[in-house]
């Protein structure tokens, strides 16, 4: 299956520059090569069917034919050795602490704006800056409790932060679903590898949500826009795994200064809302008046501190793609540390000099609208026609604040199985780790590896034809499996031990 694999030109996750497997991949590569093509294909089809039957799907907007799709799953795992992960963990922790400090600051003293480190106009002109919550004291002082930052690797294999998702990042259900799927269909791959577990995520999330309420035994709910939302599967999955109610706006109401849900036995008080609805739709009396997804009066109860929201209202100001450019400065300003993870160089339409650069070479840049996510509202210069570029540039000129541009990062690639060619082909990948911020910072090992399945494409978003992989973080840095039979029998012995150890540590955190 790895015949004629072309690993050149980009950083390859599995093979080094000489075409040799990297140490942490060696054993897995041997095991994959141990499958016959037909056996591999049989197992892949089983996984596909399992996803389809269990309805693990997402919704594609603006697509008339069959709006529910399964998220293509590639059975070749992406593997991250322990030392590499430790670096990422430190870098991400630093980043989310700084981002929360920034949010506390801009909704409070605004010291960073007063000191001119981040331009005041840039922050105040952000549509996600919510004056409605200015001066609010939040539980634990945390604004963004659930974070999904997108990481990419450049041609040298260096990890860069592409963007931070601080509002309602989705995808974590696929992390858990992918792990379950791969352990079922290819259990042999896991033997003796010391793959760190991920399934404790929902327990950690529930703990975090409960810690946001001062009441004993608070009622936690997940608020979804409803089953036609693209991430509905995830909303229901998380509610089910945490054992809390999944509610829609119409299930909730405000009276006597509290939030309640309608039940068959009358009203029941709600203390913490993990909302998967954007700020704009939360409360029609404060934000969009025509929203039917939200709850009338919710924000006033929130302001009085009688209900907690995760993530907090207004967190989006810090993941505005223009404000993003200042995150390294935030880290230095609030923590007095050097950023461990770099940003992708970014040109801001807001800045006259940058705008000039952007307009000079649009065909070499990737343009993004600052408020959009999910691969919507972007232009990939090198892949676009002149007409598409001209059209887009018109938008940029009309509202420069709303756009940024970045150079094309030659994203790292990973062998991915293509059923049509029955071969492994290199595909560009990114990585979205999921970070929980409460009293402590918890990051589940790994995250979601997204794969750009359209051949040659750099866009990994599920809405744009992306797929995903199970992502392993190893307990060690991996060993080359030269004498496979020996290393297997040895490692099988140590497997149960390492598993029980990691489970114990998962229980403690």
């Amino acid at each position, binding site marked *: 299956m790895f015949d004629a694999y072309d690993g050149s030109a980009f950083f390859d996750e599995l093979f080094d520059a000489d075409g040799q497997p990297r140490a942490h991949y060696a054993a897995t590569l041997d095991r994959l090569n141990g499958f016959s093509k037909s056996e591999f294909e049989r197992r892949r089809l089983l996984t596909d069917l399992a996803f*389809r*039957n*269990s*309805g693990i799907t997402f919704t594609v907007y603006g697509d008339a034919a069959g709006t529910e799709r399964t998220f293509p799953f590639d059975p070749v795992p992406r593997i991250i050795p322990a030392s590499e992960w430790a670096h990422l963990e430190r870098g991400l922790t630093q980043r989310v602490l700084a981002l929360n400090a920034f949010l506390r600051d801009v909704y409070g003293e605004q010291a960073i704006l007063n000191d001119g480190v981040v331009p005041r106009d840039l922050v105040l002109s952000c549509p996600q800056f919510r004056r409605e919550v200015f001066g609010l004291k939040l539980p634990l002082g945390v604004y963004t409790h659930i974070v999904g930052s997108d990481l990419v690797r450049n041609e040298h294999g260096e990890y860069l932060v592409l963007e931070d998702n601080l509002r309602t990042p989705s995808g974590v259900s696929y992390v858990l679903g992918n792990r379950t799927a791969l352990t079922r269909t290819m259990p042999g791959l896991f033997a003796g590898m010391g793959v760190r577990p991920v399934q404790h995520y929902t327990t950690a999330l529930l703990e975090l949500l409960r810690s946001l309420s001062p009441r004993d035994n608070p009622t936690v709910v*997940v608020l979804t826009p*409803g*089953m036609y939302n693209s991430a*509905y*599967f995830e909303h*229901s*999955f998380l*509610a*089910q795994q945490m054992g809390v*109610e*999944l*509610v*829609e706006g*119409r*299930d909730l109401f405000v009276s006597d200064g509290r939030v309640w*849900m*309608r*039940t*068959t*036995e*009358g009203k029941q008080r709600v203390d913490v809302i993990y909302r998967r609805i954007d700020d704009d739709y939360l409360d029609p009396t404060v934000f969009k008046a025509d929203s039917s997804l939200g709850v009338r009066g919710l924000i006033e109860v929130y302001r009085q501190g009688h209900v907690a929201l995760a993530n907090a209202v207004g967190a989006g100001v810090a993941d505005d793609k223009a404000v993003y450019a200042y995150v390294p400065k935030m880290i230095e300003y609030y923590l007095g540390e050097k950023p461990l993870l770099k940003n992708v160089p970014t040109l801001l339409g807001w800045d006259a000099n940058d705008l000039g650069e952007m307009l000079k070479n649009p065909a070499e840049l990737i343009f993004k609208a600052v408020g959009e996510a999910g691969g919507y509202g972007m232009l990939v210069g090198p892949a676009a026609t002149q007409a598409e570029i001209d059209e887009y540039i018109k938008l940029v000129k009309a509202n420069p604040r709303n756009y940024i541009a970045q150079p094309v990062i030659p994203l790292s690639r990973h062998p991915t199985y293509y059923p049509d060619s029955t071969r492994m082909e290199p595909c560009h990948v990114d990585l979205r780790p999921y970070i929980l911020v409460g009293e402590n910072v918890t990051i589940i090992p790994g995250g979601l590896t997204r794969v750009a399945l359209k051949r040659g494409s750099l866009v990994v978003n599920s809405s744009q034809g992306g797929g995903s992989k199970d992502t392993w973080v190893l307990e060690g840095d991996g060993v080359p499996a030269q004498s496979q039979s020996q290393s297997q029998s040895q490692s099988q012995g140590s497997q149960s031990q390492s598993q029980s150890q990691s489970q114990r540590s998962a229980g403690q955190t």
Partner: protein
Amino acid sequence: MLSRVAESLYWIGRYLERAESTARLLDVNYYAILEGAGLVTEQWPPLLGITGSENNFKSRHAKADAKSVPFWLAFDLYNPSSIRSCISMARENARSLRDRISTEMWESVNRAYLELCFNTDMVLQNDALHEYCTKVREVSHLFHGIALSTLQRDQGWQFLRIGQMIERADNQLRLLQVRYRKSKADGADFAEALENHRWMAVLKSASAYESYRKLHHTRLAPRSIAEYLLLEPSFPRSVLYSITGMRDALKKLPGSSGVLREADWLVARLEYARIEDILDDEKPSLERLMESIGVAGRMVNETYFSPR
């Protein structure tokens, strides 16, 4: 329990039961009509009556025949009660409460949807209607079987059961209403063999043929069949059994006194009525019983689902 969740469970119960009833009706009659060739070509319109969809049907199809009626009952998405519509709706409701029902329940209804609601064009052409209908029945049985062994016995279970039982009682009454009237009007004009054939189909539509035979060894008598389908307490698809099931589920719910009174009154009438009271004196009539079931359904809705 959230009102919306309760309502969705109730409707899953109704939709799956409706799909199952329609599948039975269609399966039995489609093949019974083949055998009764010639004599019974007028047998298609009553099926529309039983499913309560004549008017809708007429706006979409010119003629009620062996093509249009099965298509309408099984596959037509313009018919909100077609099997395909019911399974799609049951699946939509299940999807909206994936967090509340067991994963196995969800997967069974999702698989049913993927198997039965797409590429249905070829089913009639390939003479695969029987397999299709069999699958529909199995889907309903599988779903309720899984619920029986995995769903928590909380309020949700009661709502699922109320939906199923109300729908079953209602379908059974419709079947009797249409078939019994039809038979009376025809009088003695029809040969006994045909009559026999037809009542056998009625029993089979209700999945009652075998159990009826065990209790009644005589020839198939319309009156005793009606009695069996209406009043037999041990037959799980009889009207009395269904209404009793609904009543028992309501008893377990908080604040049910209003609707429980209506349900108790229905049970009482069926428990004490003899078959001649219903068929000859119409006390209570089949129509009156159907109305009462409708009232109970509306009261469930007002008590538990409508926003207060």
